[in-house]
């Protein structure tokens, strides 16, 4: 007879009638369940952490995956043309965005790329470190020191310069290259050689006296509007000089101190004439002329293919720019943009000139992702654009090779994108 607390027989083939069983305490019961569960739980790290593989080519023939090797498809641009895009030639001479590392001053005639002229605006700000006691001592001289790092045109000529004061506030931010600001009275005249690497302009004593207290105060930014650097009216010396804004400064001296005030806001006004017709199968993109190069690529036959890499490549012909006694240069850095249907211009990637191959090549994971979107018919860009890097004003030009269509087994030198596809 079963008693209260007895358990039914749990053996595999026993009678269904309950029999008396040894008493099992709740503690022992829990312990047995925990023991069993622990044994299985100990396996879990083995299950989920021990899983591994030493992959190899073994079994590849059994799996039977074939014909899926990556392949390169070179797609030439089906549309290459120059379009209008204002050059932005102003900014800050320090690391503040937008940066502008060069100002231009000069003028030259250029039958190939169009006549060019430029003049600049600049101001200064108080340096971070000032000698102790400087603010209590009188300034006795101020000198504008301009470090030249660029020449366009005939580098052997002399360039007359005028430094004017600015009497009203001006801002270079977002100003296109054809902007002008009202300038004030003439402060300094000087003639320098286009090859000089350092141009020094001594400010007159009257100006030093006028701005002595301001230069030593905390109100410099609000009280000094800077300078305009230009050629005398009507003068075309034959060269345009470029000055490095980050290395140039206003040197201020007292009887005991020499303090360099770095340049702050800078801007260059540029005017360019009409360029001559380029040679056959060439198109020339000019910096400072308000131009951009617009490209489109036909991806119709490659839609919905996985893309591992995309290289946009532009081959250039430097010989187009060659002229004895006249310095013209290819830009060091150019920028690839995407233009949306709404007209927004989005910077994608910069690249530098490869002098070995005379080409510019854009390649990055970002560019690959952009072109992959185009292959999936989801691109937000209706075309690509090329411009010279705007943070270093110049009159450089890119003579791009746009033809002819290559013969079979001949390398393609037209604007192109090399797609590494994984079908």
């Amino acid at each position, binding site marked *: *007879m*079963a*008693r*209260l607390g007895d358990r*039914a027989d*749990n*053996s595999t*083939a*026993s009678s*269904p009638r*309950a029999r008396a*069983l040894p008493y*099992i305490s709740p503690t022992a*019961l*829990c*312990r*047995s*369940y925990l*023991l*069993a*569960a622990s*044994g*299985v739980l100990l*396996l*879990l790290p*083995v*299950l*989920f952490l*021990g*899983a*591994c*593989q*030493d*992959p*190899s*080519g*073994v*079994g*590849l*023939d*059994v*799996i039977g*995956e074939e014909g899926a*090797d*990556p*392949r*390169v498809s070179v797609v030439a641009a089906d549309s290459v043309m120059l379009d209008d895009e204002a050059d932005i030639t102003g900014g800050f001479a320090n690391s503040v965005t937008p940066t502008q590392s060069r100002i231009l001053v000069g003028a030259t005639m250029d039958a190939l790329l169009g006549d060019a002229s430029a003049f600049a605006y600049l101001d200064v700000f108080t340096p971070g470190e000032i000698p102790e006691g400087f603010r209590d001592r009188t300034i006795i001289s101020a000198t504008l020191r301009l470090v030249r790092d660029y020449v366009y045109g005939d580098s052997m000529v002399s360039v007359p310069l005028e430094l004017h004061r600015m009497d009203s506030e001006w801002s270079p931010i977002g100003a296109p290259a054809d902007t002008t600001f009202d300038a004030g009275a003439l402060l300094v005249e000087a003639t320098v050689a286009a090859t000089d690497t350092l141009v020094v302009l001594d400010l007159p004593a009257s100006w030093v006296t006028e701005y002595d207290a301001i230069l030593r105060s905390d109100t410099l930014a609000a009280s000094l509007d800077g300078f305009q650097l230009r050629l005398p009216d009507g003068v075309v010396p034959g060269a345009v000089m470029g000055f490095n804004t980050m290395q140039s400064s206003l040197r201020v001296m007292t009887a005991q101190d020499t303090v360099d005030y770095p340049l702050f806001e800078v801007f260059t006004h540029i005017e360019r004439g009409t360029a001559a017709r380029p040679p056959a199968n060439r198109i020339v993109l000019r910096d400072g002329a308000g131009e951009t190069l617009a490209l489109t690529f036909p991806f119709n036959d490659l839609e919905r293919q*996985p*893309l*591992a*890499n995309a*290289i946009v490549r532009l081959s250039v012909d430097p010989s187009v720019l060659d002229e004895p006694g006249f310095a013209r240069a290819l830009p060091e850095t150019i920028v690839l943009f995407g233009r949306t249907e709404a007209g927004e211009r989005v910077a994608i990637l910069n690249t530098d000139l490869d002098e070995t*191959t005379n080409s510019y090549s854009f390649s990055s*994971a970002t560019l690959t992702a952009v072109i*992959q979107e185009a292959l*999936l018919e989801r691109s937000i860009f209706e075309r690509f654009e090329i411009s010279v890097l705007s943070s270093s004003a110049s009159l450089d030009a890119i003579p791009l090779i746009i033809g002819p269509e290559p013969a079979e087994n001949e390398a*393609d030198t037209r604007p192109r994108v*090399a797609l*590494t596809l*994984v079908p």
Partner: protein
Amino acid sequence: MRSIPTGILSAILFAGFLLAEPALAQSTNNYGSPYSRFGVGERLVLTSSMTDAMGGAGTAMRSSLYTNLANPAQWADLSFVGFSAAAQVRGTETTDAADATSRASGGGVRGIEFGIPISSRKVGMTFAFRPYSRVDYRAIEDGEIVPDEGDTPVAYRHNFEGTGGLYQFTAGLGVRLSPAISVGASAEMFFGTIEYLQRTEFPENDEYLETRTARSTRLSGVTGTLGAIVSKNNVFGEGDAIHIGASITLPAVLRGDFVQTLGVSLDRDTIATALDGSVTLPLSARFGLAYTGSEHWSFAADILYEPWSSFESDFAFGGFDPVSGINSLKDRLRAGGGFQVVPGGRRRTAGYFARTAYRLGAYAERSFYAPFDTNLNTFALTAGVSLPTVVPAARFDLGLEAGMRGTTDGMLVRDIFIRGTATINFGERWFVRRRLG
């Protein structure tokens, strides 16, 4: 009615964790044999932890403790509310004709079963979840490509990977019509995704993106299983019994869709139009014989037959393409047998190792795929122990399977595999009406 015991609650929580297996299998690097490429993947057979260790011979093997999924008629023997959950680890070494080898290992859920005696030893109900097939191959191919004229070559690596498989959910009933005859029926629901992935990476160049192209086939469908067991006691001696069993799972028509995608994880983009279609899995027929000599030992043997030559599909799988007409699938035939010894029989007072069950078995199988028109055979040994716990109806089973499949002739490969399984089997008596003496 008693409240649900702690052990069953713990087991149900554990089962909930293990039910995440499909997602876990997708996220962990579980790899196995290249032969899992064929059809819907490597066929997995789970009967019970007892009969799996006996060469998989479970069609006629009766037990009131183990929920045997080989034959629904066996569920009529249930006298305990039983829960069983199994996990497995496995290792595979693959060798080709050039003696190159690849090693892979993995693990996952082997199955979860829940049995309820509606009427003890007369009517039993079972619910089970287990994998039906598994795709878990990976192979690599290295190469170089020149991006453009004059550029330096860029190295790439193709990873060809297969993942996924089909899962099977079972719900059914076993009924004892008489002391000698039991019948059973169950509904089987199949579901799962089979994915072939090509992942191409460029390990030496950051500017190259890894591309992933996946071809995924998602399927689901329902079918049924019928089974019967005939038993006769005292055949050769007092206390022995012979059991003859048969079961058949009917062909299953699975409906689903196929889509080709590009990208990684949730950022997949569809690059080919999704296709709808169906797949017909062939029937699975089993016939088995079991002999229980005494409370100490049992012997069982089984034959399984699946006519994969009648496999139909609107989608392409490894070894089968309805468009090109490729069909490397053959009828599958498996024969296995094994025995179990319990030295102490049913004596509760016997020592621990005397109450432990020891199992040994073997099986041979002709695979359902024949790549390059070559039949592939598998030979394996199975073994296991069933460790008693302080609760008489709860046991902890460990199983081991080791075998060889295939050949290194031609372009084929030979697998040597080993699998370890751990199973918790809980049994408790519910719905017991207390009687006062």
